[in-house]
């Protein structure tokens, strides 16, 4: 059954990578990269159970957090052009 889980997550990864390559706008790619990150966590969980090493879940946790931070960094930068932008300093 872990074989089924890993295979389905791998197929979903292939499809999402194709969308990340082919997406016409930037936001298609950001969306696909965010979902690839989520699927990365699920892939690590399924692969860990498949090879009998559930310790890989820790790497999955790390990747889940960093995926969120990376998505927010790209969006913030694309909107404001500056990673140190602070909304309180504007409009004074």
């Amino acid at each position, binding site marked *: 059954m872990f074989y*089924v889980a890993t295979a389905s997550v791998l197929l*979903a990864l292939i499809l999402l990578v194709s969308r990340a390559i082919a997406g016409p*706008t930037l936001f298609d790619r950001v969306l696909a990269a965010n979902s690839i990150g989520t699927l990365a966590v*699920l892939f690590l*969980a399924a692969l860990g159970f498949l090879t009998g090493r*559930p310790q890989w879940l820790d790497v999955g946790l790390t990747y889940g957090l960093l995926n969120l931070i990376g998505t927010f960094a790209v969006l913030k930068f694309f909107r404001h052009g500056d990673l140190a932008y602070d909304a309180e300093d504007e409009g004074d």
Partner: protein
Amino acid sequence: MSTAVDILSWVLIVPGGFFILTGAVGVVRLPDVYTRMHATSVIDTVGALLLVSGLALQAPSLLVVFKLIVILALLFFTGPVATHAIAQAALEAGVEPQLDEDRRDRIVLAGERNDIQKKQQNPDATGGVQ
């Protein structure tokens, strides 16, 4: 007992994999950024829930179950937040949602169809609903 747990795991993992595949196919096939977000939210919520629950039933120890629950909570919290941020950023950047054209002037009710056919055959007659 273990076969019951195995059957329950199968029942959880196979639909989980199916929903993940559905979400991925949706991302590839749907026409617009905003509609693709619906597909990725399927992966984040239903797919992750079923898959992780199915894996948690097969976990060798309670610590692994706890880690899987933490991973699930992380995905539940960060998935919708990221989708919302992407949608708002896309709207601010001016990505237009792809709307279908207004088809109201092309919808023909059943009663009007006969009138239109009659008018086409006989352009001078003015009967029925305009």
